[in-house]
């Protein structure tokens, strides 16, 4: 199997490191530039004709630059026929030719990045420690390849490792991946990244923004005992555009625009290129037959329609499919060496939003079909088909003054999640968090189930928020979840106190609440007696916004976990585990002029006790230190950025001996103290270079994103030989370049 592993690594390394995915034609010869400067006056506007202030106008090839005033006007000295580069820090770039002293209006093609073009005060965060990144910021973070999953690792409170963890790809504040939820447009998705290539299933170009809430979130969010990641798809713009992007990993298309006066659409489609490249780079001597080369498709469709002045309607779909089949031999008849996996899901959502006066409401209906299919060798299989239907209603009423209080907001909502799963599985006993890794036995099918399960869950919530005076705001709410499979009603009160220590710049927040997640991970839902996992979260935070575009926030938290699902001695599941996580986080963000800065640090300690009388142990993904510092500069055609990462290695369990089971032909390891080893600290520097230029009617952007430029050796974890007498390290690839090209037409 190691030969196969090495072969795959060679393949993937070659895949990542191989040359560019696409080349752009050179622009046509530039016009002859006059050597005499003239004073040129022009105006910069957006698609809707609105003036853009603080846009930078640069004469190409010089350091001369001007800035637009509040009406979008500028003056600059430039020779005739020179090219002017017009840019803002958060929007795209437009080029104009100097044809005389007065130019036509220059329209910035905002769709290249974001519709928000002026630097504005950042919106208040939704909970202490939370952060929001818009699409432009997601794409500016170096070392992420512009990918949502990788961008999440820069968030303080998220465990940073080289590969996504669990289905959601994120470990937040010392909680298992399944304890957090990823919501796209408000609804859960079953998987956030592709298992081969580790790319997010949502292209960043199809995303409006990402909000990361590590804990302490409001009662409208549930079914999670840790954090929430909110991804909002991009609504179509008023201007019809098409974007195409290719990279070494995949290629995609985003089309958007108006459909009549009141309707806008956005459609995104992406396909992997792995299946085209992989067969070309697999070494001839590798014992491998790729009968279905790894491939994935992603799609998003969103339609926004303004029904009238009170009602807006949004319909959206998100879906993905992954397929992969290989034989770890050149013999395609050797069923014992076959590995097949196919996962796919499609979620369709229709939502209507109402707003009139103090009232607002949302009605939504969302359905999802998902299908996971895996077959390993001759004996092991996992086939799960799940159908979910989620109706949701929420209302809110806002009063400027009521009962002697100010800015009173009352919300209430209810939802059902009606699920049905058809399962056929024959697999080894699943490994739970904190358990030693069992030896691989291709004949082990000790977990078997065939049948269907209904799991309708219901929830209702209400909250009230009000200013007690100009400095103090209190929010309190209650959420009730009924998980019908275990027959369990869970009441979760949550409250927050906000105190403005200075009128506009410094705010303190104290947050406490109860949270739970239903037993739905892996085979948890197959056993009716397994209850939900619970957590109690306490968070205290400070937010400081000294100037527009700058935010500094710090938070400290303590989470106590109970009813954690662990294996009983007979192999069944129970709720005997408990644990605690504590730590603090610091995040500073600045978007000023041409600069974008990011500094995040988190300290965390997370431990578990697996049952009565058990010793405390470290959590599998305990990561005490994680530092992320990024700086990006954007001007004219160029954007340059760097990111430094430093983080603790993850714990692992040493093996102190093994016994050979001759009939099963495998060695059974004897684990040492759970998670008593740890991989070394890793640090790396990533760089990103973007270059934007105009080519005919299109604006093109090429990027190079290189991770770990100074080749620091990165040990992810350790593994053992088949008989556990030899130990070696899983190391990340030393240097990971990613190149791509994007065009807006």
């Amino acid at each position, binding site marked *: 199997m*190691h*030969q196969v*592993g*090495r072969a*795959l*690594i060679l393949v*993937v*390394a070659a895949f*990542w490191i191989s040359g560019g995915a696409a080349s752009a034609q050179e622009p046509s010869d530039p016009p002859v530039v006059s050597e005499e400067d003239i004073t040129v006056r022009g105006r910069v506007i957006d698609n809707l004709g609105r003036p853009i202030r603080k846009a930078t106008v640069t004469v190409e090839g010089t350091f001369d630059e001007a800035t637009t005033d509040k009406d979008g006007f500028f003056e600059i000295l430039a020779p005739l026929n020179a090219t002017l580069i017009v840019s803002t820090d958060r929007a795209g770039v437009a080029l104009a030719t100097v044809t005389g002293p007065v130019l036509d209006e220059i329209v910035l093609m905002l769709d290249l990045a974001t519709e928000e073009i002026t630097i504005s005060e950042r919106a208040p965060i939704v909970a202490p420690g939370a952060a929001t990144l818009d699409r432009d910021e997601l794409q500016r973070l170096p070392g992420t390849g512009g990918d949502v999953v990788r961008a999440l690792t820069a968030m303080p409170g998220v465990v940073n490792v*080289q*590969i996504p963890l669990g289905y959601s790809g994120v470990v937040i504040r010392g909680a298992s991946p399944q304890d957090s939820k990823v919501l796209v447009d408000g609804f859960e998705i079953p998987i956030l990244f592709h298992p081969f290539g*580790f790319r997010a299933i949502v292209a960043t170009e199809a995303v409006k923004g990402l909000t990361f809430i590590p804990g302490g979130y409001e009662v409208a969010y549930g079914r999670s005992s840790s954090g929430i990641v909110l991804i909002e798809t991009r609504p179509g713009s008023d201007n019809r555009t098409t974007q195409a992007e290719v990279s070494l990993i995949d290629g995609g298309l985003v089309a958007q625009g108006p459909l009549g006066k009141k309707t806008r659409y956005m459609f995104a489609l992406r396909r992997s290129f792995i299946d085209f490249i992989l067969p070309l780079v697999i070494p001839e001597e590798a*014992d491998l037959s790729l009968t279905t080369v790894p491939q994935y498709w992603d799609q998003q469709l969103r339609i926004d329609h303004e029904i009238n002045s009170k009602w807006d309607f949004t319909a959206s779909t998100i879906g993905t499919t992954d397929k992969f089949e290989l034989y770890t*031999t*050149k*013999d395609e008849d*050797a*069923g*014992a*060496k076959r590995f097949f996996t196919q996962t796919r899901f499609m979620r369709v959502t229709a939502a209507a939003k109402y707003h009139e006066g103090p009232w607002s409401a949302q009605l939504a209906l969302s359905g999802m079909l998902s299908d996971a299919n895996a077959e390993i060798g*001759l004996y092991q299989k996992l086939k799960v088909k799940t159908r979910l239907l989620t109706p949701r209603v929420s209302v809110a009423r806002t009063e400027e003054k009521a009962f002697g209080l100010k800015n009173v907001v009352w919300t209430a909502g209810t939802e059902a999640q009606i699920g049905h799963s058809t399962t056929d599985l024959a697999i080894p006993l699943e490994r739970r968090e904190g358990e030693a890794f069992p030896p691989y036995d291709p004949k082990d099918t000790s977990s078997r189930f065939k049948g269907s399960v209904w799991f309708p869950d219901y929830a209702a919530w209400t909250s009230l928020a009000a200013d007690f005076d100009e400095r103090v705001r209190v929010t309190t709410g209650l959420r009730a979840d009924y998980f019908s499979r275990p027959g369990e009603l869970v009441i979760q009160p949550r409250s927050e106190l906000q105190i403005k220590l200075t009128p506009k710049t410094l705010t303190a927040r104290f947050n406490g609440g109860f949270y739970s997640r239903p037993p739905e991970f892996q085979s948890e839902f197959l056993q009716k007696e397994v209850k939900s996992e619970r957590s109690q979260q306490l968070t205290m935070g400070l937010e400081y916004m000294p100037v527009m575009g700058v935010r500094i926030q710090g938070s400290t938290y303590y989470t106590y976990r109970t009813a954690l699902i662990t294996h009983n001695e007979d192999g069944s599941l129970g709720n005997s585990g408990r644990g605690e996580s504590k730590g603090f986080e610091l995040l500073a963000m600045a978007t000023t002029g041409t600069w974008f800065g990011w500094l995040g640090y988190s300290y965390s300690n997370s431990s578990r006790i697996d049952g009565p009388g058990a010793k405390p142990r470290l959590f599998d993904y305990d990561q005490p230190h994680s530092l992320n510092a990024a700086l990006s500069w954007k001007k004219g055609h160029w954007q340059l950025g760097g990111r430094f990462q430093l983080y603790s290695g993850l714990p692992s369990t040493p093996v102190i001996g093994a*016994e*050979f*089971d*001759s*009939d099963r*032909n495998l060695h*059974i390891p004897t684990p040492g103290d759970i998670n008593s080893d740890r991989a070394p600290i890793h640090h790396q520097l990533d760089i990103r270079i973007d270059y934007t230029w105009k080519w005919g009617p299109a604006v093109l952007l090429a990027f190079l994103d290189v*991770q770990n430029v100074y080749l620091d050796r990165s040990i*992810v974890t350790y*593994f*053992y*030989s*088949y*008989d556990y*007498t*030899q130990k*070696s*390290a*899983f*190391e*990340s*690839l030393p240097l*990971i370049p990613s190149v791509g090209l994007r065009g807006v037409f």
Partner: protein
Amino acid sequence: MLVGCGADIDPQWQLDHDRIIAIRATPPRITTGEESEIDALLGRIGEPPIEAEPTTAMVISPTSLAGSLMQRPTGWFVTAPGPMQLAAARTELGLAADEAVPLRIRVTFPASDEGINTGLKIVWLGEHSDNPVLDPVTIDGMVRTSTDAIVVAPAVDVRLSVPFDESYVVNWLTSAGNMHDFDLANAYLRVEPEDPQSGMLGVVVRDPLGGVAWRLWPISAQ
């Protein structure tokens, strides 16, 4: 980002490695009054594998049948007990009346580094079966009925084959060259110039009933 694995780990087909390769009970299933002898194939660093009897052996379960295992001057033996004892053992293990009783035995062997290698073996009581027969074994196009030394050409694929279906577990092992598809009935060996040019070639076959058989040949590339 993807991760890679280190190259300093011996593959499972490497014979030049200190370990228990297989434990054999002859026969693997016995009826009342029959005897089964236990021995093993041991891999050693820098030396050819050897067949050896356990240094120690003890019954793990069912404990009521601990007396079925005994050491004699010629090795360790299991004697299948009478129907009454088997019935009691079935009750102890929660087995049906006609099921064979698995007698789990822990055995130890000396390791090269003066340590101990420990292994587990099941001898099935209450029904009879024999170890599989390794015949024919085809190596480099020739049926090998003996264990005479084999000479193969370097840097070519040397085909290895035994006639067993996928319900059998086949392991091809070598200390010369690189083994490909070592766990399939049809494998191939390739001895590159940088590999050890001589050593041992072996095949171990396990059947679905607990039977095991092996054969070894000296091999060199010329």
